[in-house]
């Protein structure tokens, strides 16, 4: 089982959109996939039309009183399940801090279902916290959406330095450009100016597209609502690259 985390310290950069679309594409590709919505805002849960509720809340889950297995819901798509968000996840830090191995608890919680899934996708809340430390320990690949600005690149480099300092099995780290606006000079320039040798930034990028924006209305992955659209194409290319890194 591989674990992929959509992570960025900032909100509104396209983490959830990437997590949802990549999880769908992985499942369509035959990977038995579980998407865990770790964000109490429950955007991913909402997009799959599932109630943002885990019986007993995050507490029962994190303390191991309720198995992850019991909380999993099937999405409408074959091979793709969801572990829903719950409002109580906003106290996840405190709950994790209360366990024996506070930074490895998430990893431990996924262990019992590791035989059932080929891929777990973590949709992370925007923060740097005990939750994100758990994500770093659990993930094989941290996938970071970047809106093309100089600042976001610098933040990404800081994250890379941080991850390099982690002890234990460090995750791979890749960024991709998100919400790229072709009409913005800055976006185009920044992407062109990128040193060729930067292997930690993927070639595929996701353009700013109505199809993605409209996911809140369609409540479907773009590959389902608009299979031939630009956005669907972009997530398809992104999945191809991500799959390559994971394999």
């Amino acid at each position: 089982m591989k674990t992929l985390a959509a992570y960025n310290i900032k909100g509104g950069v396209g983490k959830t959109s990437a997590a949802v679309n990549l999880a769908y594409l992985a499942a369509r590709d035959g990977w038995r996939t579980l998407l865990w919505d770790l964000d109490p805002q429950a955007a991913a849960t909402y997009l799959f039309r599932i109630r943002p509720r885990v019986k007993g809340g995050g507490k029962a889950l994190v303390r191991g009183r309720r198995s992850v297995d019991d909380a999993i819901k099937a999405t409408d798509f074959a091979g793709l399940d969801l572990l829903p968000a719950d409002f109580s996840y906003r106290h996840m830090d405190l709950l994790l801090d209360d366990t024996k191995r506070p930074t490895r608890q998430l990893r431990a919680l996924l262990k019992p279902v590791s035989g059932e899934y080929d891929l777990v996708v973590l949709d992370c809340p925007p923060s740097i916290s005990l939750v994100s430390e758990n994500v770093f320990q659990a993930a094989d690949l941290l996938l970071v959406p970047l809106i093309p600005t100089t600042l976001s690149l610098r933040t990404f480099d800081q994250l890379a330095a941080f991850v390099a300092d982690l002890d234990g099995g460090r995750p791979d780290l890749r960024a991709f450009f998100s919400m790229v606006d072709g009409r913005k000079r800055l976006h185009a320039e920044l992407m062109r100016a990128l040193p060729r040798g930067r292997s930690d930034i993927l070639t595929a990028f996701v353009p700013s597209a109505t199809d993605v924006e409209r996911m809140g209305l369609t409540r479907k992955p773009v590959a389902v609502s608009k299979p031939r659209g630009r956005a669907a194409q972009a997530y398809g290319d992104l999945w191809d690259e991500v799959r390559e890194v994971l394999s």
Partner: protein
Amino acid sequence: MPTPKEFTLAGPQHAVTLAESTSHLHGVLGLHHDASHDASHDASHDAGHGDAIAFLDTFDWRVHSAGFVLARLGDALELSDRETGALLIRATATGRVEFDEDLPAVLRDRLDGALGVRALRPVAAVTSVVAVLTEHNEDAKTVARLVVSDGQVDTARGPVPLTRRVAVVPLRGYDRFAAALAARVGDLPGVEPAGSTVFAEAVAVTGRRPGDYSSKMALTLRRETSTYDAARLVYRTLLASLQANESGTMAGVDTEFLHDFRVAVRRTRSALKELPGALPPDVEQHFRDEFRWLGQTTTPTRDLDVYLLDFPSFTAAVGSAAADLRPLHRFLRAEQRREHVALRRALGSARYRRLRDEWSLAVDADAPTAAPGPAGLAPIGRSADIRIRKVAQRLLRDGHRITADSPAGALHDLRKRAKELRYLLEFFGSLYDRKPHSAAVSELKGLQDNLGSYQDAQVQRHEVEGFAERLLSAGETSAATLLAAGRLVATFDDRQRQARAEFAERFASFAGPRNRRRLAELTGGDW
């Protein structure tokens, strides 16, 4: 994983179309039509019909006996519980899946060696056209699915339709919706809970039945039946087994076909020898000769099969020199292929066909061409007692004569005796009390295993020497290969010595008072 609840719809498939059935269910149950599913099926329409499933099992139903159903759907292999139909494991397998080692690790673990050396073959192939209806909650989230399907089985006579099925498929975390929907479906007129699985229905259509083949003899005889009738039943049963294995042997599907084919030949020869006079002596003599020929014709291929099956243990035995044995393996493979061609020719020959067809007529149930022989009218109960006693006592006598200095040939003869006794006990098991009979068989089996490993080691040793010489004369070998062969010979020597050392103990147990009392109890007479 959740288990679908299955129903069947009354009436033949063609009376009402799938679309009509679906739209009816759609209406009465208030469900939604899942067009996305239709689309994916339309896409595959030109390739035939919707989903194609091949159910896989070995010729002797080892998957089924282990309690499972194995199905291939494109690149997916699904293992389900035979009774409940619950899906246990789904795994991806892109290539050919024939033998245990071709299986994905999760499946291999679960089947736990059940396949042995046997090959998986499709036992039934079903293609289906399906329509999917879904139940939604107020968020338009799917909470249960209804799959209506028309399956058909590919058979030699052409496609045969199965009963139209309706399956209520639960979604993880939403089971209660499926349960409620299943209850509503079950209440509809013309809908019945499915009495059998698709697997069972499809296999039945092919004319086979799980468990319909086993190499074990299971005859039901009565003591007062005439030896003539009893012998013919034995012969017919063996002939059926021989014929069942014919095409698999010809095609070389797996090594067990030839193995079982030869067992049938050997048992037939043994019965011809041990039940003399059941048929006219000239008939018996003729078929003894013909079956001897058939046995001999199949021997070289079987010997090479055994060799190749044992090869992994050879390489393990020589450790670091394993790579040096590779030329030997290649050589054996080539020889096996050559011998198999010859075997196929023999089984395609007029002589074989004549043997098979004439024998079939001779021992026919209703109009046998062979009349009762001089001993044919004696009741089989008495005949069996006498034969078993005689062969067992001969085995005891010869076994007692074996000493540490006896030549290997003496042990080989003893092994033949043991085999004859084993066959008699198997043919006539139904005439005796189960408990002492099976105890006697397992005692005998212990002895046979010992004699078998002794002889196998001897034969293999002899053959490695022979092969090494042939490799040498063909100029195809290196010193390293010869050295490895030498080490192999040494391990065979070891095995043989070990079997020899254990012989006395095994035989003493067989010949002990307990087992003799048992044999006396079974067959009477003086022990």
